């Protein structure tokens, strides 16, 4: 399977362990990734909070570049995923906006490729049976809660790949690789997003609530698919509530015997090494 790949800014920076683990797991699952040529930032919260047209034009430049290669584009960062999907949605439903954007970029947007999250690709293209066959080290003793946050799921008519109130796809993936996934009702509650920098105290409280509920559900770690969720959960919890947080691809790599998880676990603020070592997984 061949896909275009839009890493976005953070997968080359503060979320480099997400970027590296997505690439490694994709290779192990037979997915060939080709980075979108000369991509630029999606604009994230800053663009859509201040200028609607800019928030469509920035991702549109990337979508137009990606569709020239004729393959669907994988977008692992939930924030980029949401912005690219939103741009696609707005251009599909607003012809006037679409032609304005095309004029700015200087190229037609055909809407010919799908924007895909790795969770969706693993479930719908690879399949859980195939994934199960690749597991050489089942994650016995790992008791995660799956945290989906906001940007993978909402608005539902834009994101459109899992139930927006009770998503289950990430739970199914973790279950397939042998983790004892815990049920909780905070899967889709907001972590505070980019307010973490400008309104840190508010975000501290939001993250503490999430971590308390994860602990109460019996989890010994949290699994995420978003660099912002990772940053907030990993850095903003009170000392007494902290839990290791992993990108789901880090744990998939571990279960599939792919190189990297030991190095990646050390890159988080809450080092995941003691948990993984204690369970004899590394």
């Amino acid at each position, binding site marked *: 399977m061949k896909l275009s790949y839009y890493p976005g800014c953070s997968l080359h920076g503060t979320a480099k362990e997400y970027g590296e683990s997505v690439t490694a797991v994709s290779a192990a699952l037979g997915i060939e990734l080709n980075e979108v040529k000369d991509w630029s930032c999606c604009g994230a919260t800053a663009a859509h*909070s201040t200028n609607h047209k800019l928030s469509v034009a920035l991702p549109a430049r990337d979508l137009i570049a990606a569709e020239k290669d004729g393959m669907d584009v994988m977008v692992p960062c939930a924030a980029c995923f949401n912005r690219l999907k939103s741009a696609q949605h707005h251009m599909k439903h607003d012809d006037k906006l679409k032609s304005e954007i095309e004029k700015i970029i200087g190229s037609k947007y055909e809407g010919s490729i799908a924007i895909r999250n790795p969770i969706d690709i693993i479930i719908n293209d690879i399949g859980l049976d195939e994934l199960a066959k690749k597991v050489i080290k089942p994650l016995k003793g790992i008791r995660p809660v799956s945290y989906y946050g906001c940007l993978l799921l909402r608005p539902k008519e834009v994101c459109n790949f899992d139930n927006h109130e009770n998503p289950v796809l990430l739970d199914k993936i973790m279950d397939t690789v042998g983790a004892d996934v815990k049920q909780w009702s905070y899967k889709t509650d907001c972590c505070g997003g980019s*307010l973490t920098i400008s309104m840190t105290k508010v975000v501290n409280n939001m993250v503490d609530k999430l971590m308390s509920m994860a602990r109460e559900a019996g989890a010994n770690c949290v699994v995420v698919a978003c660099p912002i969720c990772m940053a907030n959960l990993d850095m903003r919890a009170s000392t007494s509530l902290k839990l290791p947080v992993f990108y789901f691809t880090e744990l998939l790599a571990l279960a599939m015997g792919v190189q990297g998880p030991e190095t990646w676990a050390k890159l988080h603020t809450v080092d995941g090494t003691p948990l993984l070592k204690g369970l004899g997984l590394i």
Partner: protein
Amino acid sequence: MNSFLKEVNDKINGVPLQRCYHCRKCTAGCPMANVMEYNPNRIIKMIQNGMKDEVMNSSTIWLCASCETCITRCPNEVDIARMMDALREMSIEQGYAPKEKNIFRLHDSFLDNIKINGRINEGLLMVEYKLRSGDLFSDMVMGMGMFLKGKIHPISPRTKDMAAVRKIFRDTK
């Protein structure tokens, strides 16, 4: 003269705010309602009542975290998250001073970073934000830790076709 309600509806360009029957489901699910000056439902009512300055000068429009829970739960498909974006955009266009200055400064620093590099360099973004906000010392230890782990770096890959990126900013003003 257009009413404030019409002005906001035109900007949203979707389901009109008159569709809201004030069930307050948006507010019940809002993770920021407890720290907002006026809750999301109250903002809709204030727009319906023409209270433009109060809405534009409120902290609420900046504190919305864009989690989009409200829109998924609204029984009348009123896009409250889009409304908050529209209000922020209108307040900038019309010269209202943002009540939550640091939230605005972060957005502005973020967009500046894209104008220069085409992509975000998270280290440089934080430096610019800190200089603008005057909040120099929070998260210093965390920043150093990230630097030592190779997660932030003063030099990172840029977009090559910066003329195209600059054109986007120029033409969407």
